[in-house]
Protein backbone atom coordinates (compact mmCIF):
# COMPACT_ATOMS: atom_id res chain seq x y z
CA UNK A 1 0.00 0.00 0.00
CA UNK A 2 1.23 3.46 -0.86
CA UNK A 3 2.41 5.78 1.86
CA UNK A 4 -0.20 8.19 3.06
CA UNK A 5 1.12 11.35 1.47
CA UNK A 6 -1.39 13.68 2.97
CA UNK A 7 -0.43 17.16 1.88
CA UNK A 8 -2.97 18.53 4.29
CA UNK A 9 -4.62 21.64 2.94
CA UNK A 10 -5.04 23.94 5.86
CA UNK A 11 -8.57 25.14 6.21
CA UNK A 12 -9.47 27.59 8.89
CA UNK A 13 -11.50 25.37 11.16
CA UNK A 14 -13.83 28.15 12.25
CA UNK A 15 -14.82 28.92 8.69
CA UNK A 16 -15.73 25.45 7.48
CA UNK A 17 -19.24 24.35 6.58
CA UNK A 18 -18.50 20.65 7.00
CA UNK A 19 -16.57 19.39 9.97
CA UNK A 20 -15.79 15.73 10.54
CA UNK A 21 -13.73 14.69 13.54
CA UNK A 22 -12.54 11.15 14.13
CA UNK A 23 -15.41 9.65 12.17
CA UNK A 24 -15.48 5.85 12.02
CA UNK A 25 -17.96 3.49 10.44
CA UNK A 26 -17.83 -0.28 10.08
CA UNK A 27 -20.00 -2.79 8.28
CA UNK A 28 -19.54 -6.15 9.94
CA UNK A 29 -15.81 -6.70 10.15
CA UNK A 30 -15.03 -4.15 7.51
CA UNK A 31 -13.92 -0.77 8.82
CA UNK A 32 -14.88 1.52 5.96
CA UNK A 33 -14.02 4.82 7.63
CA UNK A 34 -11.31 4.79 10.24
CA UNK A 35 -11.24 7.95 12.31
CA UNK A 36 -11.26 10.47 9.48
CA UNK A 37 -11.15 14.27 9.82
CA UNK A 38 -12.47 16.49 7.04
CA UNK A 39 -13.22 20.18 6.70
CA UNK A 40 -14.84 21.85 3.74
CA UNK A 41 -14.73 25.64 3.41
CA UNK A 42 -17.75 27.63 2.22
CA UNK A 43 -17.92 27.57 -1.54
CA UNK A 44 -15.20 24.97 -1.78
CA UNK A 45 -15.61 22.22 -4.35
CA UNK A 46 -14.17 18.97 -3.01
CA UNK A 47 -14.03 15.81 -5.08
CA UNK A 48 -13.80 12.48 -3.30
CA UNK A 49 -12.11 9.70 -5.22
CA UNK A 50 -11.75 6.09 -4.26
CA UNK A 51 -11.99 2.53 -5.54
CA UNK A 52 -15.37 0.81 -5.27
CA UNK A 53 -16.42 -0.15 -1.77
CA UNK A 54 -14.05 2.20 0.03
CA UNK A 55 -16.77 4.11 1.78
CA UNK A 56 -17.24 7.16 -0.45
CA UNK A 57 -20.97 6.71 -0.48
CA UNK A 58 -20.95 5.88 3.24
CA UNK A 59 -19.30 9.23 3.90
CA UNK A 60 -21.98 10.94 1.83
CA UNK A 61 -24.73 9.08 3.68
CA UNK A 62 -23.24 10.19 6.99
CA UNK A 63 -23.33 13.79 5.79
CA UNK A 64 -26.94 13.53 4.67
CA UNK A 65 -28.02 11.83 7.89
CA UNK A 66 -28.95 8.51 6.33
CA UNK A 67 -26.44 6.71 8.49
CA UNK A 68 -24.98 7.31 11.92
CA UNK A 69 -21.24 7.14 12.58
CA UNK A 70 -19.95 4.49 14.99
CA UNK A 71 -17.66 7.12 16.49
CA UNK A 72 -16.71 10.74 15.97
CA UNK A 73 -18.69 13.86 15.16
CA UNK A 74 -20.31 14.97 11.93
CA UNK A 75 -21.26 18.63 11.65
CA UNK A 76 -23.08 20.00 8.62
CA UNK A 77 -24.87 23.23 7.66
CA UNK A 78 -28.68 23.39 7.87
CA UNK A 79 -29.44 23.46 4.14
CA UNK A 80 -28.03 20.43 2.35
CA UNK A 81 -29.16 18.84 -0.85
CA UNK A 82 -28.16 15.70 -2.70
CA UNK A 83 -28.00 14.66 -6.33
CA UNK A 84 -27.81 10.88 -6.61
CA UNK A 85 -26.51 8.62 -9.32
CA UNK A 86 -30.06 8.09 -10.55
CA UNK A 87 -32.38 11.11 -10.82
CA UNK A 88 -34.78 9.78 -8.12
CA UNK A 89 -37.68 11.86 -9.37
CA UNK A 90 -41.21 11.18 -8.19
CA UNK A 91 -42.72 9.62 -11.30
CA UNK A 92 -46.25 10.57 -10.29
CA UNK A 93 -45.55 14.32 -10.20
CA UNK A 94 -44.71 16.79 -12.94
CA UNK A 95 -41.19 18.15 -13.39
CA UNK A 96 -41.84 21.48 -11.66
CA UNK A 97 -43.49 19.74 -8.70
CA UNK A 98 -40.40 17.55 -8.48
CA UNK A 99 -38.14 20.59 -8.41
CA UNK A 100 -40.15 22.28 -5.67
CA UNK A 101 -40.56 19.02 -3.75
CA UNK A 102 -41.04 19.64 -0.05
CA UNK A 103 -41.62 23.36 -0.49
CA UNK A 104 -45.06 24.74 0.07
CA UNK A 105 -47.15 27.38 -1.59
CA UNK A 106 -47.02 29.42 -4.74
CA UNK A 107 -43.84 31.17 -3.61
CA UNK A 108 -41.83 28.10 -4.55
CA UNK A 109 -43.01 28.23 -8.15
CA UNK A 110 -40.91 31.12 -9.47
CA UNK A 111 -37.58 29.92 -8.06
CA UNK A 112 -38.46 26.44 -9.35
CA UNK A 113 -38.98 27.75 -12.87
CA UNK A 114 -35.80 29.80 -12.61
CA UNK A 115 -33.85 26.72 -11.55
CA UNK A 116 -35.29 24.77 -14.47
CA UNK A 117 -34.30 27.60 -16.80
CA UNK A 118 -30.78 27.46 -15.41
CA UNK A 119 -30.45 23.81 -16.34
CA UNK A 120 -31.99 24.55 -19.74
CA UNK A 121 -35.33 22.83 -19.16
CA UNK A 122 -37.68 25.81 -18.79
CA UNK A 123 -40.06 24.28 -21.34
CA UNK A 124 -40.28 20.96 -19.50
CA UNK A 125 -41.90 22.30 -16.33
CA UNK A 126 -45.20 20.54 -17.06
CA UNK A 127 -43.69 17.36 -18.48
CA UNK A 128 -43.82 14.02 -16.66
CA UNK A 129 -40.50 12.55 -15.49
CA UNK A 130 -41.03 9.38 -17.54
CA UNK A 131 -40.95 11.42 -20.75
CA UNK A 132 -37.48 12.83 -20.07
CA UNK A 133 -34.17 11.46 -21.32
CA UNK A 134 -31.60 10.31 -18.79
CA UNK A 135 -29.63 13.55 -19.07
CA UNK A 136 -32.74 15.70 -18.78
CA UNK A 137 -33.93 13.82 -15.72
CA UNK A 138 -30.54 14.30 -14.08
CA UNK A 139 -30.69 18.02 -14.87
CA UNK A 140 -34.08 18.17 -13.14
CA UNK A 141 -32.46 16.49 -10.14
CA UNK A 142 -29.75 19.14 -10.23
CA UNK A 143 -32.35 21.93 -10.42
CA UNK A 144 -34.15 20.35 -7.46
CA UNK A 145 -30.92 20.40 -5.48
CA UNK A 146 -30.02 23.99 -6.39
CA UNK A 147 -33.40 25.64 -5.93
CA UNK A 148 -33.03 25.45 -2.17
CA UNK A 149 -29.76 27.37 -2.33
CA UNK A 150 -27.86 24.78 -0.31
CA UNK A 151 -24.84 25.64 1.78
CA UNK A 152 -23.69 22.10 1.06
CA UNK A 153 -24.37 20.27 -2.17
CA UNK A 154 -23.68 16.54 -2.14
CA UNK A 155 -23.15 14.90 -5.52
CA UNK A 156 -23.14 11.09 -5.41
CA UNK A 157 -21.63 10.03 -8.74
CA UNK A 158 -24.20 12.17 -10.54
CA UNK A 159 -22.74 11.58 -13.97
CA UNK A 160 -22.05 7.86 -13.71
CA UNK A 161 -25.23 6.71 -15.42
CA UNK A 162 -25.04 9.19 -18.30
CA UNK A 163 -23.64 8.59 -21.76
CA UNK A 164 -20.21 10.05 -22.49
CA UNK A 165 -21.42 13.11 -24.42
CA UNK A 166 -24.17 14.00 -21.96
CA UNK A 167 -21.65 13.56 -19.18
CA UNK A 168 -19.37 16.20 -20.67
CA UNK A 169 -22.26 18.64 -20.97
CA UNK A 170 -23.42 17.92 -17.45
CA UNK A 171 -19.94 18.43 -16.05
CA UNK A 172 -19.80 21.85 -17.67
CA UNK A 173 -23.25 22.68 -16.41
CA UNK A 174 -22.33 21.70 -12.87
CA UNK A 175 -19.12 23.73 -13.08
CA UNK A 176 -21.07 26.80 -14.26
CA UNK A 177 -23.83 26.48 -11.70
CA UNK A 178 -21.46 25.91 -8.83
CA UNK A 179 -19.38 28.91 -9.91
CA UNK A 180 -22.54 31.01 -9.89
CA UNK A 181 -24.16 29.78 -6.67
CA UNK A 182 -21.00 28.87 -4.77
CA UNK A 183 -22.32 26.15 -2.48
CA UNK A 184 -19.77 23.97 -0.77
CA UNK A 185 -19.72 20.80 -2.85
CA UNK A 186 -18.70 17.25 -2.12
CA UNK A 187 -18.57 15.27 -5.34
CA UNK A 188 -18.15 11.52 -5.08
CA UNK A 189 -16.75 10.04 -8.26
CA UNK A 190 -14.65 7.26 -9.77
CA UNK A 191 -13.34 9.49 -12.51
CA UNK A 192 -9.97 11.16 -11.87
CA UNK A 193 -10.32 13.48 -14.88
CA UNK A 194 -13.76 14.58 -13.79
CA UNK A 195 -12.46 15.37 -10.32
CA UNK A 196 -9.51 17.33 -11.69
CA UNK A 197 -11.76 19.23 -14.08
CA UNK A 198 -14.27 20.36 -11.47
CA UNK A 199 -12.79 20.45 -8.00
CA UNK A 200 -10.78 22.93 -5.96
CA UNK A 201 -9.50 20.04 -3.93
CA UNK A 202 -9.32 16.35 -4.68
CA UNK A 203 -9.24 13.78 -1.89
CA UNK A 204 -8.56 10.06 -2.25
CA UNK A 205 -10.29 7.76 0.23
CA UNK A 206 -8.54 4.45 0.62
CA UNK A 207 -8.12 1.90 3.38
CA UNK A 208 -10.42 3.83 5.71
CA UNK A 209 -8.50 7.12 5.47
CA UNK A 210 -7.41 9.82 3.07
CA UNK A 211 -4.48 8.63 0.96
CA UNK A 212 -4.08 11.94 -0.86
CA UNK A 213 -5.58 15.36 -0.24
CA UNK A 214 -4.38 18.09 -2.55
CA UNK A 215 -5.54 21.49 -3.73
CA UNK A 216 -5.81 21.87 -7.50
CA UNK A 217 -4.77 25.46 -8.20
CA UNK A 218 -5.63 25.71 -11.85
CA UNK A 219 -7.76 28.64 -13.02
CA UNK A 220 -11.17 27.97 -14.54
CA UNK A 221 -12.59 27.20 -16.97
CA UNK A 222 -10.23 24.26 -17.10
CA UNK A 223 -9.16 22.32 -20.11
CA UNK A 224 -8.92 18.61 -19.46
CA UNK A 225 -5.71 18.45 -21.55
CA UNK A 226 -4.03 21.31 -19.73
CA UNK A 227 -0.60 20.03 -18.57
CA UNK A 228 -1.20 21.69 -15.19
CA UNK A 229 -4.19 19.38 -14.79
CA UNK A 230 -2.69 16.24 -16.24
CA UNK A 231 0.35 16.66 -13.99
CA UNK A 232 -1.85 15.67 -11.08
CA UNK A 233 -3.39 12.69 -12.79
CA UNK A 234 -0.49 10.27 -12.32
CA UNK A 235 -0.30 10.97 -8.60
CA UNK A 236 -3.99 10.38 -8.17
CA UNK A 237 -3.97 7.21 -10.23
CA UNK A 238 -1.15 5.79 -8.17
CA UNK A 239 -2.90 6.84 -4.97
CA UNK A 240 -5.87 4.88 -6.27
CA UNK A 241 -3.62 1.89 -6.84
CA UNK A 242 -3.51 2.08 -10.63
CA UNK A 243 0.03 1.60 -11.87
CA UNK A 244 0.79 3.28 -15.20
CA UNK A 245 1.47 0.94 -18.10
CA UNK A 246 5.00 0.74 -19.26
CA UNK A 247 5.52 1.41 -22.97
CA UNK A 248 6.09 -2.11 -24.35
CA UNK A 249 2.69 -3.38 -23.46
CA UNK A 250 3.00 -6.62 -21.55
CA UNK A 251 0.36 -9.16 -22.27
CA UNK A 252 0.03 -11.79 -19.65
Amino acid at each position, binding site marked *: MSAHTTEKTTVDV*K*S*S*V*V*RLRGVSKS*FGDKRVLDGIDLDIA*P*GEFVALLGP*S*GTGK*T*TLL*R*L*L*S*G*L*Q*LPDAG*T*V*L*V*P*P*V*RTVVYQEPRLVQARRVLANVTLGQRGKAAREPGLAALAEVGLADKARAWPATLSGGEAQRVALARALVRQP*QLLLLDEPFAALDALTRLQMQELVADLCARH*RPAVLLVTHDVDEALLLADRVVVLRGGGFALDRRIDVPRPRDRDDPAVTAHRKDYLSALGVTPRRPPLEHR
Partner: protein
Amino acid sequence: MTTVRTIPDLAVPEFLGVKSRSRWLSLLLRVSVPALILLLWWYSTSHGWVSTEVFASPGQVVQAFWELVNTGQLWDFGLASLRRAGLGVGIGVSVALVLGLVAGLSRLGEELVDATVQIIRVVPFLALVPLFISWFGVDEAFKVALIAVSSASPMYAYTYLGVRSVDRKVVEAARGFGLRGWRLAVGVVVPSALPNILMALRICLGISLVGLIAAEQVGATEGIGYLVTLAQQYYRNDYMVLCIVIYALIGIGVDLVIRLIERTAMPWRRHGTAAG
Protein backbone atom coordinates in the same frame (compact mmCIF):
# COMPACT_ATOMS: atom_id res chain seq x y z
CA MET B 1 -12.18 33.66 -3.62
CA THR B 2 -12.04 36.52 -1.19
CA THR B 3 -15.74 37.12 -0.83
CA VAL B 4 -16.81 37.43 2.76
CA ARG B 5 -19.27 34.73 3.71
CA THR B 6 -21.37 34.21 6.72
CA ILE B 7 -20.77 30.77 8.09
CA PRO B 8 -24.01 28.99 8.93
CA ASP B 9 -24.34 27.30 12.30
CA LEU B 10 -23.20 23.74 11.92
CA ALA B 11 -25.12 20.90 13.45
CA VAL B 12 -25.20 17.14 13.53
CA PRO B 13 -27.44 16.06 10.62
CA GLU B 14 -30.88 14.87 11.56
CA PHE B 15 -30.92 11.09 11.27
CA LEU B 16 -33.04 10.11 8.28
CA GLY B 17 -32.15 6.43 8.15
CA VAL B 18 -34.14 3.52 9.49
CA LYS B 19 -33.81 2.99 13.19
CA SER B 20 -33.37 -0.63 14.11
CA ARG B 21 -35.20 -1.94 17.13
CA SER B 22 -34.43 -4.97 19.20
CA ARG B 23 -36.41 -8.10 18.34
CA TRP B 24 -37.83 -8.40 21.83
CA LEU B 25 -39.10 -4.84 21.97
CA SER B 26 -40.64 -5.30 18.55
CA LEU B 27 -42.34 -8.51 19.65
CA LEU B 28 -43.54 -6.86 22.85
CA LEU B 29 -45.09 -3.99 20.88
CA ARG B 30 -46.80 -6.41 18.53
CA VAL B 31 -48.33 -8.40 21.36
CA SER B 32 -49.26 -5.39 23.47
CA VAL B 33 -52.42 -4.28 21.65
CA PRO B 34 -54.13 -7.71 21.49
CA ALA B 35 -53.11 -8.30 25.11
CA LEU B 36 -54.64 -5.00 26.12
CA ILE B 37 -57.91 -5.87 24.38
CA LEU B 38 -57.94 -9.25 26.11
CA LEU B 39 -57.36 -7.60 29.46
CA LEU B 40 -60.14 -5.11 28.83
CA TRP B 41 -62.50 -7.94 27.90
CA TRP B 42 -61.70 -9.89 31.05
CA TYR B 43 -61.94 -6.83 33.30
CA SER B 44 -65.20 -5.47 31.85
CA THR B 45 -67.04 -8.82 32.07
CA SER B 46 -65.75 -9.69 35.54
CA HIS B 47 -66.67 -6.27 36.95
CA GLY B 48 -70.12 -6.24 35.50
CA TRP B 49 -69.57 -3.42 33.03
CA VAL B 50 -70.75 -5.72 30.33
CA SER B 51 -73.37 -8.35 31.06
CA THR B 52 -72.26 -11.89 30.25
CA GLU B 53 -75.64 -12.29 28.56
CA VAL B 54 -74.44 -9.76 26.01
CA PHE B 55 -70.83 -10.84 25.80
CA ALA B 56 -69.57 -13.99 27.47
CA SER B 57 -66.60 -13.73 29.80
CA PRO B 58 -63.20 -15.24 28.94
CA GLY B 59 -63.83 -17.98 31.54
CA GLN B 60 -67.11 -19.04 29.94
CA VAL B 61 -65.53 -19.07 26.51
CA VAL B 62 -62.65 -21.22 27.70
CA GLN B 63 -65.18 -23.57 29.25
CA ALA B 64 -67.13 -23.78 26.00
CA PHE B 65 -63.86 -24.44 24.22
CA TRP B 66 -63.05 -27.39 26.53
CA GLU B 67 -66.55 -28.72 25.96
CA LEU B 68 -65.86 -28.85 22.26
CA VAL B 69 -62.45 -30.39 22.80
CA ASN B 70 -63.77 -33.08 25.13
CA THR B 71 -66.58 -34.14 22.83
CA GLY B 72 -64.07 -34.32 19.99
CA GLN B 73 -66.19 -31.90 17.99
CA LEU B 74 -63.51 -29.26 17.70
CA TRP B 75 -61.23 -31.70 15.97
CA ASP B 76 -63.98 -33.02 13.66
CA PHE B 77 -65.29 -29.56 12.86
CA GLY B 78 -61.83 -28.16 12.25
CA LEU B 79 -60.85 -31.02 9.99
CA ALA B 80 -64.07 -30.85 7.97
CA SER B 81 -63.70 -27.12 7.45
CA LEU B 82 -60.00 -27.41 6.70
CA ARG B 83 -60.73 -29.94 3.96
CA ARG B 84 -63.39 -27.74 2.39
CA ALA B 85 -61.35 -24.57 2.67
CA GLY B 86 -58.16 -26.25 1.45
CA LEU B 87 -59.86 -27.74 -1.59
CA GLY B 88 -61.82 -24.58 -2.39
CA VAL B 89 -58.92 -22.19 -1.94
CA GLY B 90 -56.63 -24.56 -3.84
CA ILE B 91 -58.91 -24.63 -6.87
CA GLY B 92 -59.81 -20.93 -6.74
CA VAL B 93 -56.26 -19.75 -6.25
CA SER B 94 -54.81 -21.96 -9.01
CA VAL B 95 -57.34 -20.82 -11.60
CA ALA B 96 -56.98 -17.16 -10.59
CA LEU B 97 -53.19 -17.40 -10.60
CA VAL B 98 -53.16 -18.69 -14.16
CA LEU B 99 -55.68 -16.08 -15.30
CA GLY B 100 -53.78 -13.31 -13.55
CA LEU B 101 -50.52 -14.42 -15.15
CA VAL B 102 -52.08 -14.65 -18.61
CA ALA B 103 -53.68 -11.20 -18.27
CA GLY B 104 -50.55 -9.66 -16.81
CA LEU B 105 -48.09 -11.16 -19.26
CA SER B 106 -49.73 -10.94 -22.67
CA ARG B 107 -51.58 -8.17 -24.38
CA LEU B 108 -54.09 -10.60 -25.88
CA GLY B 109 -54.61 -12.21 -22.49
CA GLU B 110 -55.29 -8.86 -20.92
CA GLU B 111 -57.82 -7.96 -23.59
CA LEU B 112 -59.62 -11.29 -23.33
CA VAL B 113 -59.45 -11.95 -19.59
CA ASP B 114 -59.12 -8.75 -17.65
CA ALA B 115 -62.29 -6.85 -18.48
CA THR B 116 -64.46 -9.95 -18.03
CA VAL B 117 -62.90 -10.99 -14.74
CA GLN B 118 -63.06 -7.45 -13.41
CA ILE B 119 -66.81 -7.41 -14.10
CA ILE B 120 -67.44 -10.81 -12.53
CA ARG B 121 -65.17 -9.92 -9.61
CA VAL B 122 -67.60 -7.29 -8.36
CA VAL B 123 -70.45 -9.79 -8.03
CA PRO B 124 -70.62 -10.64 -4.31
CA PHE B 125 -70.00 -14.36 -4.09
CA LEU B 126 -72.73 -14.70 -1.48
CA ALA B 127 -75.21 -13.79 -4.22
CA LEU B 128 -74.22 -17.05 -5.89
CA VAL B 129 -75.37 -19.23 -2.98
CA PRO B 130 -78.91 -19.98 -4.29
CA LEU B 131 -77.64 -20.54 -7.80
CA PHE B 132 -74.88 -22.87 -6.64
CA ILE B 133 -77.32 -24.84 -4.48
CA SER B 134 -79.52 -25.43 -7.50
CA TRP B 135 -76.49 -26.52 -9.52
CA PHE B 136 -74.50 -28.56 -7.01
CA GLY B 137 -77.04 -29.43 -4.33
CA VAL B 138 -76.19 -28.83 -0.69
CA ASP B 139 -73.29 -31.26 -0.45
CA GLU B 140 -69.55 -30.85 -0.52
CA ALA B 141 -69.38 -29.75 -4.15
CA PHE B 142 -71.47 -26.68 -3.41
CA LYS B 143 -69.30 -25.71 -0.42
CA VAL B 144 -66.02 -26.17 -2.24
CA ALA B 145 -67.29 -24.28 -5.28
CA LEU B 146 -68.44 -21.34 -3.17
CA ILE B 147 -65.07 -21.08 -1.39
CA ALA B 148 -63.23 -21.43 -4.70
CA VAL B 149 -65.18 -18.52 -6.18
CA SER B 150 -64.72 -16.41 -3.06
CA SER B 151 -60.94 -16.80 -3.06
CA ALA B 152 -60.47 -16.45 -6.81
CA SER B 153 -61.13 -12.74 -7.13
CA PRO B 154 -58.53 -11.34 -4.70
CA MET B 155 -55.97 -13.79 -6.06
CA TYR B 156 -56.63 -12.65 -9.61
CA ALA B 157 -56.48 -8.96 -8.74
CA TYR B 158 -53.23 -9.21 -6.79
CA THR B 159 -51.52 -11.52 -9.27
CA TYR B 160 -52.41 -9.22 -12.13
CA LEU B 161 -51.12 -6.24 -10.20
CA GLY B 162 -47.97 -8.11 -9.17
CA VAL B 163 -47.18 -9.26 -12.68
CA ARG B 164 -47.79 -5.76 -13.98
CA SER B 165 -45.36 -4.25 -11.52
CA VAL B 166 -42.52 -6.67 -12.27
CA ASP B 167 -39.66 -4.65 -13.70
CA ARG B 168 -40.29 -4.49 -17.46
CA LYS B 169 -36.58 -4.27 -18.12
CA VAL B 170 -35.89 -7.54 -16.37
CA VAL B 171 -38.66 -9.22 -18.35
CA GLU B 172 -37.26 -7.77 -21.58
CA ALA B 173 -33.82 -9.08 -20.69
CA ALA B 174 -35.22 -12.54 -19.91
CA ARG B 175 -37.06 -12.55 -23.26
CA GLY B 176 -33.78 -11.61 -24.87
CA PHE B 177 -32.20 -14.68 -23.30
CA GLY B 178 -34.84 -16.81 -24.95
CA LEU B 179 -37.31 -17.34 -22.10
CA ARG B 180 -40.86 -17.58 -23.34
CA GLY B 181 -44.30 -18.38 -22.05
CA TRP B 182 -44.35 -20.91 -19.24
CA ARG B 183 -40.62 -20.74 -18.52
CA LEU B 184 -40.69 -16.94 -18.42
CA ALA B 185 -43.60 -17.06 -16.00
CA VAL B 186 -42.07 -19.62 -13.66
CA GLY B 187 -38.48 -18.47 -13.92
CA VAL B 188 -38.84 -14.72 -13.72
CA VAL B 189 -42.33 -13.33 -13.35
CA VAL B 190 -43.79 -15.44 -10.54
CA PRO B 191 -40.74 -15.11 -8.26
CA SER B 192 -40.73 -11.36 -8.80
CA ALA B 193 -44.47 -11.08 -8.17
CA LEU B 194 -44.32 -13.39 -5.16
CA PRO B 195 -44.76 -10.67 -2.53
CA ASN B 196 -48.09 -9.74 -4.10
CA ILE B 197 -49.13 -13.35 -4.58
CA LEU B 198 -48.48 -14.18 -0.93
CA MET B 199 -50.38 -11.08 0.12
CA ALA B 200 -53.25 -12.37 -1.99
CA LEU B 201 -53.00 -15.75 -0.29
CA ARG B 202 -53.44 -14.09 3.09
CA ILE B 203 -56.57 -12.35 1.90
CA CYS B 204 -57.90 -15.49 0.19
CA LEU B 205 -57.56 -17.52 3.36
CA GLY B 206 -59.37 -14.79 5.27
CA ILE B 207 -62.19 -14.65 2.76
CA SER B 208 -62.48 -18.42 2.69
CA LEU B 209 -63.70 -18.19 6.29
CA VAL B 210 -66.60 -16.05 5.09
CA GLY B 211 -67.24 -18.66 2.43
CA LEU B 212 -67.17 -21.39 5.08
CA ILE B 213 -69.76 -19.68 7.25
CA ALA B 214 -72.04 -19.15 4.28
CA ALA B 215 -71.56 -22.65 2.91
CA GLU B 216 -71.88 -24.48 6.23
CA GLN B 217 -75.18 -22.81 7.04
CA VAL B 218 -76.76 -25.13 4.52
CA GLY B 219 -76.72 -28.92 4.69
CA ALA B 220 -73.82 -29.24 7.11
CA THR B 221 -73.55 -31.10 10.41
CA GLU B 222 -69.98 -30.19 11.15
CA GLY B 223 -67.53 -27.43 10.48
CA ILE B 224 -66.47 -24.22 12.13
CA GLY B 225 -68.99 -22.32 10.01
CA TYR B 226 -71.69 -24.71 11.27
CA LEU B 227 -70.65 -23.74 14.78
CA VAL B 228 -71.95 -20.22 14.14
CA THR B 229 -75.32 -21.60 13.04
CA LEU B 230 -75.36 -23.81 16.11
CA ALA B 231 -74.67 -20.92 18.46
CA GLN B 232 -77.41 -18.91 16.82
CA GLN B 233 -79.96 -21.72 17.03
CA TYR B 234 -79.39 -22.46 20.70
CA TYR B 235 -78.76 -18.84 21.58
CA ARG B 236 -75.50 -19.72 23.30
CA ASN B 237 -73.59 -16.48 23.84
CA ASP B 238 -70.47 -18.32 24.97
CA TYR B 239 -70.41 -20.21 21.66
CA MET B 240 -70.96 -17.02 19.70
CA VAL B 241 -67.90 -15.46 21.31
CA LEU B 242 -65.98 -18.71 21.01
CA CYS B 243 -66.53 -18.59 17.25
CA ILE B 244 -64.94 -15.15 17.16
CA VAL B 245 -62.02 -16.42 19.22
CA ILE B 246 -61.57 -19.45 16.97
CA TYR B 247 -61.57 -17.25 13.88
CA ALA B 248 -59.04 -14.96 15.52
CA LEU B 249 -56.84 -17.97 16.31
CA ILE B 250 -57.15 -19.12 12.71
CA GLY B 251 -56.10 -15.59 11.73
CA ILE B 252 -52.95 -15.89 13.82
CA GLY B 253 -52.28 -19.33 12.35
CA VAL B 254 -52.67 -18.10 8.79
CA ASP B 255 -50.42 -15.13 9.48
CA LEU B 256 -47.70 -17.35 10.94
CA VAL B 257 -47.87 -19.81 8.07
CA ILE B 258 -47.65 -17.09 5.44
CA ARG B 259 -44.76 -15.44 7.27
CA LEU B 260 -42.97 -18.77 7.28
CA ILE B 261 -43.61 -19.17 3.56
CA GLU B 262 -42.37 -15.64 2.97
CA ARG B 263 -39.16 -16.39 4.80
CA THR B 264 -38.48 -19.59 2.92
CA ALA B 265 -39.86 -18.60 -0.49
CA MET B 266 -38.30 -15.14 -0.60
CA PRO B 267 -34.80 -15.57 0.82
CA TRP B 268 -33.57 -12.56 -1.16
CA ARG B 269 -35.56 -10.29 1.10
CA ARG B 270 -33.43 -11.15 4.10
CA HIS B 271 -30.13 -10.84 2.27
CA GLY B 272 -28.70 -7.79 0.56
CA THR B 273 -29.74 -4.18 1.10
CA ALA B 274 -26.39 -3.44 2.73
CA ALA B 275 -25.21 0.04 1.88
CA GLY B 276 -21.83 0.17 0.17
